[in-house]
């Protein structure tokens, strides 16, 4: 559905994108993550036909961004990081205006507008002026706008940026609905916990280079070289840590200074699980109060990848 090959964008001395190659299949929800200035918006703008690449190629729905922009525009819905405000335009007029730009007329237009307003839960605001809406509502309206012509691909640049928790949850639920409708979505965001819940694939970009692309499971397993367990013992954690280090599969055992009785244990990848840690401690007469496997999340994966720890 979306494919880029050695996509490069150079602004004077700045290389915004450096030979970026990625593939997003139909129905994928692709989370595009990276620090500010990494090249996320540049990539999305090239795919949205707003920018021309310096070199390389990009295809959306089989059409090239170099010369087939008109075809692409009918297939995509783009939500920029800034909401375009028209003063003195009502919600319905706003949607009617964009429907007319996509040449949707007559009864079709009315039906489509009614449907997208229902989908985005904005029906009760249809006569409100656009510039009177809250940021969360504006973002829902932006999604309503891009759905008007039923595009196959949605390009969403920071759709949850600046929203309060409730509005973020509403947007997330809306995006889930769109995922269920079979849309291919490329979404950039800083809120990584939400992306991991929503996306089946992620791409991590830094300084214009794609450091990782693949499924969420792949990145987590790639980042996690060893298992980490947290164990709480009733007394003598130092001795317990020393006892653990005697085991072949334990690479590291450190007492956590800020948490009483807790030990962080790094276990070799070869171990089936971390249950042997409990057994070992009980055998050595330590009273184990608690043990749990430390979860690794997308945020941590992002931090490690962007630090260059994963190539």
């Amino acid at each position, binding site marked *: 559905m979306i494919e880029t090959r050695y996509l490069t964008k150079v602004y004077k001395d700045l290389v915004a994108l450096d030979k970026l190659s990625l593939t997003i299949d139909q129905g994928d929800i692709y989370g595009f993550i990276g620090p500010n200035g990494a090249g996320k918006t540049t990539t999305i703008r090239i795919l*949205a*036909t*707003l*920018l*021309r690449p310096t070199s390389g190629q990009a295809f959306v729905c089989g059409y090239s961004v170099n010369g087939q*922009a*008109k075809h692409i*525009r*009918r297939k*995509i819905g*783009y939500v*920029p990081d*800034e*909401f*375009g*405000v*028209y*003063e*003195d*335009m009502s919600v319905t*007029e706003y949607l*009617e*205006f*964009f*429907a*007319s*730009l*996509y*040449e949707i*007329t*007559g009864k079709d237009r009315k039906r489509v507008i009614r449907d997208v307003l229902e989908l985005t839960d904005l029906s009760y605001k249809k006569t409100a002026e656009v510039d009177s809406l809250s940021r969360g509502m504006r973002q829902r309206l932006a999604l309503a*706008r891009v759905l008007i012509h039923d595009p196959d691909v949605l390009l969403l640049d920071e759709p949850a940026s600046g929203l309060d928790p409730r509005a973020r949850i509403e947007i997330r639920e809306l995006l889930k609905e769109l995922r269920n409708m079979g849309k291919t979505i490329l979404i950039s965001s800083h809120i990584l916990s939400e992306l991991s819940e929503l996306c089946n694939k992620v791409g991590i970009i830094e300084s214009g280079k794609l450091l990782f692309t693949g499924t969420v499971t792949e990145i987590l397993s790639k980042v996690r070289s060893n298992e980490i367990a947290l164990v709480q013992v009733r007394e003598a954690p130092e001795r317990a840590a020393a006892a653990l280090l005697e085991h072949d599969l334990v690479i590291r055992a450190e007492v956590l200074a800020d948490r009483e009785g807790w030990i962080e244990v790094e276990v070799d990848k070869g171990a089936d699980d971390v249950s042997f840690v409990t057994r070992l401690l009980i055998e050595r007469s330590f009273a184990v109060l608690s043990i749990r496997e430390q979860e690794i999340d997308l945020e941590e994966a992002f931090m490690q990848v962007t630090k260059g720890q994963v190539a």
Partner: protein
Amino acid sequence: MTGFPIFVRELVAYARRPRTYVFQSVFLALLVLVLIPLWPPSGQGRSGAEIAETGGLIFQFGGYLQVILLALLAPATTANAITLEKDKKTLDVLLLSDAGPFAIVWGKFLSRLFNLAFLLFLTVPLLFALLTLGGVGAKAIGVQFAILLAFAVFGAGIGVLLSTILHKTSSVLMVGYGILAAILGGPGLVEQLGLYSVPPGQYALGAAYASPLYDMIYLFRTSSFVATESFPLHWWVCPAWCLAGGLVCVTVAGFLLPYATSIDRILSFRTVFERFDAMTERALGIFRRKAPEGAPRPTVGTGNPIYWKETSINTIGRFRYWWRANLALLAFMGISYLAFKPMLGKIEFHKVTVAVLGGLIMLLLTVIAATTVSSEREDSSLILLATTPVECATYVKGKVAGILRNTMFLIALPFVHVAIFIGVGVIHPASFFLLMFAIPAAAATAVIQAIFVSLLFPTTLRAIMAAILILVLESALPLICCLPSFNLPMSCYFFVEPVGGLGQAFAATSQGNYLVAMGLAVVFSALTQIGFSVVIYSLISSGFDRYIGRAA
């Protein structure tokens, strides 16, 4: 940086921008390009008196040119002084700092004045080179410099004040240019309209007191103002009030700055329109049984959506009772006839009136069209349009048609005026048909040209400046190639002819031949403009995706 942080910051920012130096080079190059052809060639046996006369002429033209350039540059350099801070939401941050409102406005004012003054200082070597030719004294050069500097202070001061009290940079520019044009050209217009005449033997210093341009003329031709003076004794009046006026403007801006956001809301065109709307609705309600609840806006329908947006949403277009504003315009025109009653029988009055209206049309259309894309860029709506499959033709046609519809009555004013006085028997009927070719073609060209400029430049200010500069250069075309096509005021002036004395300049020829010549001229002009518009449209069309993408 602790003494005057805003001033220092602004000055450093200016110094770092490469365009500052490009701008200064262009200013100097323009002056040199205009003045060098006038420079007397050496070794051709010309007498000292002849060379001195040429030196005096160069000095005069240089002075006039600098006043006009200052009038163009002063609002342009100060228009965004405060409006930009408002747009970026940094004004409150500045106001909350220890700097205080006066340090802010004075810092902005002085840094911009410094740049204007620097431009003037760049010309000093040129001016003193004139001393070698004779015909001009060091004192005259000093006086001219003082007049220019004081005018720069006034222009910058008024720009900073307007930037404080108005919301949009484009509004500041329009009002600023209006004020400076009235000051520079006002005395001439008043005299041209016959409202002001000086009896023989009496002083005619009013114009020199009021306008820096006339003060320059006073400097060069003292005896036409005061018969007994050989050097202008009263030259200081105009610079004195310009200086005082500029400083007062900045001080007032300092007082108003803390309330800037509230004031610009009150003074915005939108608020003014809405108040006018409500007022006229009440006034017209007297003639109705029941006042309407509010006229519904037309829906998008199946027509051009860009046209719908231009005529239903934008500041002028959204004006629900748009025709009422035009009615007011007509009423104003009617009242002005009463004021100018003694002049209505003179053809010169009508020539100047139609020429002024022609100039207004060109200027307003250019400013409106130049802001049309940049304003969409600034409110981030252009980016949304750019990702829709909207065609170039739809976009440009919608914009041109929308702007022309919104300003339709203004465009119609010269026709209404001419039609009335054709009926009265003052103006020749042929004038109406000549204007029918001249005005629409010039108006459409101005709009399409400014839209193109608006697509190219990243900010409203630069787009407006570039569009006006192009307009000025085009208006100067008749001076160098006898092509009046792009100078609508000049065309309007020549096309308005009296009934009795048609074609006074061609008194020897028959009226019929003269009419044919005028007809050919206007057709040629219109065709030139249409051809020019087609070229620009093709340019936009061929690179529409590139331009609109770049603009977004």
